[in-house]
């Protein structure tokens, strides 16, 4: 393969990774925008999504797309439950407490999945196994699927937030809580809706990514931490920031793995974070102070 082809392969890799990270980060940033909770259990939701889909596809023989919808629904419900049972009671607690509770949810979900499926790595069959070339770049269909699926979802989410009433209430609440409650927005319904969307996005991201990756109980750890890096880069609570940040991390990783070292590719995102926060304590795209 010529070096230019290799270069395009890295771009494709970056796009794939960036799409997945972006979807996960989107859910995280929406929840942060509404509740100001860094939801540490978000990675566990991602992981549960993959396992639910795995169960539906492998054990029940259900179609990939149906399984994806099923996984999204299950995880959306889990998200809503965690909002109702855990985060709502802690709304006025001191700042450390909701974070610790989120960690509790994370530990619980992981342990449950471990208890049912064990710790071993599983492989989810890809729905389409052929190679697909666009221009000069050939890649497994699943990769194209990830990129297309993620872009589609992001566009849909954008339309939802801008064009529908439910969506614009989410944006309104994220921008100004008190103001929103003054004009009669039911904050708790919006919070539930946000958690549902956030969970569904995480599940879809997991189901898209799983066929070219592995399914195991700890699969959410790295992804959630990178998603945090992304939303800090992009500004916590910002939707375009999450997408852009996802792409930045995706490309940094794919090129870093190729041109620097595969061993340390997972560190790249964190080193980037450390460097950026060292110079800009409030993130990359935020302005002003406090």
């Amino acid at each position, binding site marked *: 393969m010529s070096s230019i082809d290799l270069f395009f392969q890295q771009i494709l890799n970056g796009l794939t990774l960036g799409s997945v990270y972006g979807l996960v980060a989107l859910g995280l940033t929406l929840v942060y925008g509404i509740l100001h909770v860094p939801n540490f259990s978000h990675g566990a939701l991602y992981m549960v999504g993959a396992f639910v889909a795995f169960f539906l596809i492998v054990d029940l023989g259900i179609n990939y797309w149906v399984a994806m919808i099923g996984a999204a629904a299950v995880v959306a419900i889990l998200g809503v439950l965690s909002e109702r049972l855990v985060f709502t009671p802690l709304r006025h607690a001191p700042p450390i407490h909701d974070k610790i509770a989120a960690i*509790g949810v994370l530990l619980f979900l992981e342990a449950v999945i471990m208890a049912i499926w064990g710790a071993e790595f599983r492989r989810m069959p890809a729905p389409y196994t052929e190679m697909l070339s666009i221009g000069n770049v050939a890649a497994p269909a699943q990769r194209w699927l990830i990129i297309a699926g993620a872009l589609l979802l992001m566009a849909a989410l954008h339309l939802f937030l801008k064009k529908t009433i439910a969506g614009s209430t989410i944006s309104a609440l994220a921008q100004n809580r008190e103001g929103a409650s003054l004009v009669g927005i039911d904050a708790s319904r919006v919070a539930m809706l946000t958690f549902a969307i956030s969970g569904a996005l995480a599940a879809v991201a997991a189901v898209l990514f799983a066929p070219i990756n592995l399914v195991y109980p700890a699969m959410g750890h790295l992804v959630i931490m990178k998603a945090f890096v992304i939303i800090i880069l992009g500004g916590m609570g910002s939707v375009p920031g999450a997408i852009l940040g996802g792409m930045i991390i995706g490309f940094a990783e794919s090129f870093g793995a190729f041109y620097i070292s595969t061993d340390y590719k997972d560190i790249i995102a964190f080193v980037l974070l*450390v460097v950026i926060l060292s110079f800009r304590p409030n993130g990359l795209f935020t302005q002003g102070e406090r």
Partner: protein
Amino acid sequence: MKYLVQKGGWLILLLLCVAFPLVSSNDYQLYVMSLAFIWAIAASGLNLVTGFTGQLNLAHGGFMAIGAYTLGVLTVDYGVPFWIAFLLSGAVSAFIGYFVGIVSLRLKEHYFAIFTLCVGFILYLLIEKWEALTHGTSGVIGVPAPPPIGPVSFESAISQYYLVLFLLVVSLFLMHRIVTSLLGRTFIAIRNSEELAEALGINLMRNKVLSFVLSTFFAGIAGGMFAGFVRFIGPDIAHVMHTFDMITFMLVGGIGTLLGPIVGTLLVTWLTQSLQFLQDFRMIVFGPLLVLLVIFFPHGLVGSYKIWQVKRAAKRAAEAQQAGTPIQSKSRIETNASGEGVGEEARSNA
């Protein structure tokens, strides 16, 4: 007599710990208990920065790993005498803690927690990948046990038990000095409100970094002792799960109290032991437990007891005042005025 009553909880706990080897039936129980003491030292360090200073540090397990690897690598690969390596385990951890602190503590609340989560993960990855230094996934094997100091040797399980207990007591003694002093009050003021603390002329950065460095020192020596006690270390000890474990210990016992992390560690360790069949799945129990604690019992065992104690004292003082003896009430204040805190406060977000 009054002194005895006040320090009763401490004395009883200490006596129980000293007497434990006499009543315990086997070495295994001693082993479990000693290990719990080591975790208690680390958890108590976490409590200093998180419970007393209000900074949720999710890299704490990583600093414990730094301590463990410092001792392991220095003794096994470089032939450094155990006790020197042990002191260095605290020093190296605190040294790295200083640099992590001056960067991370500029960040507030969520940013700090997320940042330290990432730092913990970087430490874990570094330990796993940097084979030349850390032996990678195969870990450091054959870490020496603590060699004798003068006539005292640490070969038997009992002597090791007392060694670790001694270390715990010394750590707690130092911790007690810190949190009941003006320094501890400074930390608590920062926890209550950074804005107010700063307006009171407290240098936030300097004090937060000090608290952070001290906490990493405790994590470091706990890690060093862990390595010398278990005799084998792998990258696993840097895993963020251990930080989560310590948070559980701290919450069960009482976050922001001196004894809380110790009580919590012992209790949770024995609970886990008696639920042995759960081993891998213990989080099915502890995950929801953590959530329930935070919602319904945020002060933990010791914290709730402390609040009750402070309230009772305040009530008595009020009664004494009504009876017209204000002098008495003043001496009351003095006894309550240990800087030891009770958990985080529920702030009404007006």
